[in-house]
């Protein structure tokens, strides 16, 4: 019972944050709404019993990735969005699309309402279990992902390098 109440509270906060992200005109408000979404997702993970994933979600997503987003918005100094007058195409395609999407989702959920939901604590929660799985059963994907991250870092360094150092001459 308490589980359901807490789940609903954090789910409402999450969806409200996501809607606020779209509705806000200033990009920094959108970025901060995204931080709220990340935080409430972390709370949802905690409710499922995955405490390590919740903590890492806060540390990595809300505490590093979103900080980077906020930095970029601050440095680029993008102002508020202009208010346009709305587009006909968006209304013509969007509203039927939304209705069809929600009908589909409701149908799928009702079709599969017999399957048991995931119990809290069914998934590995403690860091020890996750560490074991990561380094025993899922070792190859782990190592391949680290190579991927290395490639991303190298790409960022190449993209951000100054052009004159590539030419080899520097004007003082």
């Amino acid at each position: 019972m308490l589980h359901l109440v807490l789940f609903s509270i954090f789910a409402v906060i999450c969806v409200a944050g996501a809607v606020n992200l779209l509705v806000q005109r200033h990009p920094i408000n959108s970025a901060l709404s995204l931080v709220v979404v990340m935080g409430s997702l972390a709370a949802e993970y905690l409710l499922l019993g995955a405490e390590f994933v919740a903590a890492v979600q806060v540390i990595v997503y809300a505490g590093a990735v979103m900080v980077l987003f906020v930095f970029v918005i601050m440095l680029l100094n993008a102002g508020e969005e202009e208010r346009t007058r709305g587009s006909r195409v968006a209304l013509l395609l969007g509203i039927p699309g939304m209705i069809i999407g929600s009908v589909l989702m409701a149908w799928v959920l009702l079709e599969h309402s017999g399957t048991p939901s995931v119990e809290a604590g069914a998934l590995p929660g403690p860091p020890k279990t996750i560490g074991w799985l990561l380094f025993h059963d899922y070792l190859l994907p782990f190592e391949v992902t680290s190579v991927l991250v290395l490639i991303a870092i190298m790409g960022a360094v190449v993209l951000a390098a100054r052009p004159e150092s590539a030419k080899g001459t520097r004007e003082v």
Partner: protein
Amino acid sequence: MSVTAFIVISVVKIVVAIIVLLTAVAYTVWLERKVVGHIQNRWGPTRVGPFGLLQPLADGLKFIFKEDLTPPHVYKPLYIAAPMIALIFALTSISVIPVGNWVNVAGISTPLQITDVNIGLLIIFGITSLGVYGVALAGWSSNSKYSLLGGLRASAQMVSYEIALGLSLIGVLITAGSFSLREIVDAQSGTFWGFIPRWNIFQGQIVAFFIYLTAAYAETNRVPFDLPEAETELVAGYHTEYSAMKSAMFFMAEYANMITVACLASLLFLGGWHGPLFGPPILQAILPLLWFVLRVFVFLFIYIWVRGTLPRFRYDQLMAFGWKFLLPLAIANLMITALIVAVKS
């Protein structure tokens, strides 16, 4: 124990912890002014009360009565929210810090800690990384050159040194085998050969200790890493445009972060509350708490001592030090610790 008893006890613990923490913040300011004063061959505050002990009270009253002006060109919502964010995250990390063993009061036994989660250290990392928002948003929302530059520099510095901070603590985790702060402290009980205490410093984490301390000085924006808020460099950095209570909130957040770092260092490296117990049983119940407070006081004193002694880094020196020296050193420490633990087991 029943739900209501749990809630009542938790609320009592939270209230006590907040009161103690805020008083500690106020008196850390007093300690700093006195110690830095004596280092600089002058008295610190001496007028208000004996030894200036009522000076924090006078400062608090001053902050309350100061005019709280909001400059016209700031971005109001974030301008008002940023100091609150900074203070909230600075005060939250006290909730997983244990200060003693389980106590048994009137038949109810409870740990001297607000909550004993088994990922305590990860929660502290999370709160530290969220604390960057207060600084960054304060710098940006003040809508001034000095504030923006100071805020961005401070947040870049905090994010860079978080990595070295985390990696240095993983050595401690490997040695103790758990994220829970209470279990890490319990793994340091007992002594080697009867008199050398089994603290993590002596269990091979001495390099990690120095990395942690250095990275923590940079995280809390204290000398020698306090370029983002140095008066001669950037007026006052990210809190230039703040007056009265909001600036006091940044101040309190900085000192609360210092106290959290000191508590963590004493828990993770210096054995927490373990120390010789002697005397009558009532004294024996209080002694662990006193040992813990003694360790925290030693760390705060070292913080203030370093502040009075060292000059500050230039910003490029600061970032180079964090990325090119501390980070490889922390990774090397981690690998050596992991090797030793793997070979031993």
